[in-house]
């Protein structure tokens, strides 16, 4: 039994820098294995949809743009993603990967949370189609 058993620690702390890391002015390097933003390689994708099926958060949509050409575009919802990397494992051709340094993904508006991957023209078509679908939906309501 003693009083003030933590005296040693407490006293030493007087002469020691606080352990608090003052993010964001002070940053630690992200670990190599960190699971950040998902990236998609259009060249490798075979459109098998396994990632879409396995995604626990419905964050991925792979859309067929050209059947003959086997060309796809991808819409990825950052805000739904749980960063579990199951899609990366499920993807047999290795078209998906997770960035280890893009992890500060907060934004003040919703737009940056929907990410489009693929050919520029395809993405445009996808976005136009989406805008029309939204307009229709709004009219129905």
């Amino acid at each position, binding site marked *: 039994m003693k*009083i*003030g*058993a*933590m*005296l040693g*620690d*407490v*006293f030493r*702390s*007087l002469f*020691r820098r*606080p*352990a*608090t890391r*003052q993010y964001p002015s002070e940053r630690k390097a992200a670990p190599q294995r960190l699971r950040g933003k998902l990236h998609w390689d259009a060249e490798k994708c075979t459109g098998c949809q396994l990632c879409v099926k396995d995604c626990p958060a419905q964050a991925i949509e792979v859309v067929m743009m050209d059947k003959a050409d086997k060309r796809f575009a991808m819409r990825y919802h950052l805000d739904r993603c749980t960063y579990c990397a199951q899609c990366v494992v499920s993807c047999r051709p290795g078209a998906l990967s997770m960035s280890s340094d893009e992890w500060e993904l907060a934004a003040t508006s919703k737009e940056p949370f929907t990410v489009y991957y693929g050919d520029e023209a395809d993405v445009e078509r996808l976005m136009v189609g989406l805008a029309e679908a939204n307009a229709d939906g709004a009219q129905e309501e």
Partner: protein
Amino acid sequence: MSEILALLFFPGGLFVLAGGMAYEWADRKLVARLQNRVGPRWFQPLADTVKLLAKEEVIPSGVNAFLFLGLPVVALAGALTAAIYVPLAGLNPIYSFPGDLIVTLYLLSLLTLCTGLAGANTANTFSLVGATRTLTQLFSYEAPFLLALLGPALAAGSWQINQINAYAHDHWLLLTQPVGFVVALIGLMGKLELPPFDAPEAETEIVAGALTEYSGRGLALFRLGRNVELMIGLTLVASFYLGGLGNPLEFFAKTLALLLGLSFLQSLMARLRIDQTVGLWWRYGALLVLAQWLALILIGGLAR
């Protein structure tokens, strides 16, 4: 004229309020550093106060509104009034009369009493339990604290604060009355409800204790009152036990040294339950101080 200035600005009034906040900051910063944290920036207490003053004061239903609004004012007024009798910044007190020590001590208790009444005034169960604990604690530390501060008075043969201060200047009472010093310091912690005596406001049990229902101005005034009391308490203990306060430099050095001691004590202990607090004060605090009194009187009598 100069008296009014002294009352309103320096060393009374504004100086006490600003000083109180500065001491609160110093206390929080020190505890934070002892816990290896960064702690608040220097303007945090001021920012808190300004924010609280600007906020809506919610008067809960089922309370006596007059009491609810009046108690914080009385509490702060009591603390500020007590400030005029103590040698703040090492200067002579603004007012002084024989027996002002007793008046000061009772004025200092006003804050605790008001806190307790404020808790009892609201219909919140946490407040009620908090109020009960606040008042229970008041009755447990008050007598030993009083006795501990009367020890120097006895030695100096005066009940007037500036005379005791002058006497203490030549006599380091810390050396002759060590028990009194410890009891006074720990009594101050009880008065300010600092850990380990923070059962009346134990957040993990009763949220914020007696002041749970307080917001806005009322809370700001109570907090200011407590800050002022921290400063006055430190001044009293430093002036009585640490060789008196003769000039501002002495004042700051001695009170800050005391504050460092307080922050060590705060960070080294777990919270005591209210029954343990009461037991500690009556079983040890009061008895030890009384024993020391007895010793002082006997030695004084023999020496004569």
